């Protein structure tokens, strides 16, 4: 048996050591070139479609560029000062923050709740997963079509349902008091599946021994949830919270498709305003300046997360 193993593996040990090191240094030199060569296709796309637009956009924000590409002269900080004094910019930033707050809270808490319930191990696992996760796979336009129809003031299922209890429902998407809530409900329905999956994976990674030990100490179900499940889910919650905030800050699709930012701009997020300024108002330079103000908000959230995450890993 041992001889057979020895015969099977000779080539590695046979070569003399000096031979090997010569091969290594030559390989290292070749690796220098090869490394850049292998990265080249990605770097080409990366440079052209990510890095260049990032800097070009910044440059554009200091110019008066229009959609036709004319009027590219340098205007200094004009766009920036105009943006900071533009009440539409501020209201769209407030709307974005408000949407982020309203959507993030349920998208974290309800996702956790659903995952904990599904993780109990009730029959019908695939059905629960399908129900809560499937909407995440739908395109935004499909989701918006479904929900525009649900919210239809006269014919929609929601107001029909309310009608059975004698309640006259509002014109959800046309009423400034309910439009934002309606969009948030749709967003929760659409995207909760992702957070649900992350929580489900985290729950399955909690070691059984923790629960067994707690049972021996006489802890009940609720007690176990509070002192084992919740603390064990803390890292996932931080992650889900930040990913969700970043996703919510970037909201555009469903609002554009469901309310168009209306009524009266009450649901217009900052990305929609950038789109309007750039592509229907043809002011690319001004749109770029607003884009960068938004970029700083995203960076702040990202950095805040990295600080929290690194502190956590230092503790651990």
């Amino acid at each position: 048996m041992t001889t057979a193993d020895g015969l099977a593996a000779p080539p590695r040990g046979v070569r003399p050591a000096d031979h090997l090191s010569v091969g290594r240094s030559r390989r290292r030199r070749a690796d220098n070139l090869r490394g850049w060569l292998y990265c080249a296709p990605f770097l080409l796309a990366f440079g052209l479609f990510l890095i260049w637009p990032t800097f070009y956009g910044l440059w554009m924000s200091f110019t008066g560029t229009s959609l036709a590409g004319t009027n590219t002269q340098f205007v200094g900080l004009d766009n920036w000062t105009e943006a900071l004094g533009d009440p539409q910019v501020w209201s769209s930033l407030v709307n974005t923050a408000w949407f982020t707050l309203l959507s993030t809270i349920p998208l974290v808490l309800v996702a956790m709740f659903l995952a904990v319930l599904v993780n109990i191990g009730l029959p019908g696992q695939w059905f629960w997963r399908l129900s809560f996760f499937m909407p995440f796979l739908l395109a935004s336009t499909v989701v918006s079509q479904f929900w525009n129809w649900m919210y239809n003031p006269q014919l929609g299922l929601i107001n029909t349902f309310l009608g059975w209890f004698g309640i006259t429902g509002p014109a959800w998407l046309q009423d400034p008091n309910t439009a934002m809530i309606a969009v948030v409900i749709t967003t929760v329905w659409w995207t909760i599946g992702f957070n649900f999956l992350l929580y489900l994976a985290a729950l399955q990674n909690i070691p059984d021994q923790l629960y067994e030990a707690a049972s021996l100490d006489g802890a009940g179900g609720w007690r176990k949830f509070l002192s084992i499940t919740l603390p064990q889910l803390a890292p996932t919650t931080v992650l889900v919270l930040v990913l969700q905030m970043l996703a919510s800050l970037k909201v555009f699709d469903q609002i554009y498709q469901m309310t168009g930012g209306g009524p009266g701009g009450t649901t217009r997020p900052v990305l929609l305003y950038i789109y309007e300024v750039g592509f229907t108002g043809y002011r690319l330079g001004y749109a770029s300046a607003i884009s960068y103000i938004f970029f700083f908000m995203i960076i702040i959230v990202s950095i805040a997360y990295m600080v929290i995450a690194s502190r956590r890993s230092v503790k651990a």
Partner: protein
Amino acid sequence: MSAANPTTVTLTPVVPRAAVTARTASSKRRRGPAPARIAAFVILAVLATAWLVPVLWAVLTSFKTEAEAAAMPVTIVPDGGFTVAAYVKVLSEGLVPRWAWNSFITSAAVTLITVTISALAGYALSRLRFAGRTMLITLIVASIMIPGQILIVPLFHLMLNLNMVDTYWGIILPQVVAAPMVFILKKFFDQIPFELEEAALMDGASRFRILRSIVLPLSKPILGAVSIFVFIGAWNNFLWPFIVVNDSNLMTLPTGLQTVISAYGIQYAQNMAQAVLAALPLIIVFMFFQRQIIKGIATTGIAGT
């Protein structure tokens, strides 16, 4: 090297497996008392129903006549029975099949290019010690923070100059830059034991052959996960195709559907039929590959969002 191979292949890092095996254990463990389980079941059933209602309602509407879809006391089951008239109309007159084809072609191209260039770069960053490697890794990771949405203005300007507005390439190319995927693949390659390649290098195999015949076959799970994630993202992408394409013959499903919302106005049954048709491909794919998709999204999604 050929002799050493079979034993080591089984040691391949297959990261997501752990979650699958853990599930069987977890279903046994938290068995609470019976009343609690029944309560949990009822709550779940109510919530799952609530989650399915918007889809079911759209499907129901799509099988009604336009008159019945817009009938004032809303009926669940129409008096005249169900009909496929809306589907016939949409498929014969509308551009839905064309948009589905555009979506498929562009998403498949985005997936193919993204996975190829990301795997090449990921391999180089993982295995080749070249000058500037650390700097590149830092740059790529830092770039994950840049939200693609803020680039629509300069990107559109770039596409105008490249004459790519209203072309497939205009839709495809800006979507192939996926820094998170490069990073995910690099991390996966890092876990593959280097001895395998060392032996092949000694035997004089080229780097490219090693990548193709050793590294990539061992990385099937992660390549599958990345492909699924990228494909779904491209299939459902709205903002960029919406910006770069105006010709309705070149639109993808999500953007084409958007033009119909405004054009059809109050043709509710047809609207719903289009939406259901647009949703169908991914739902069917999901039914078949539920486990792989869930696994893929859970492993790549964290860095991908």
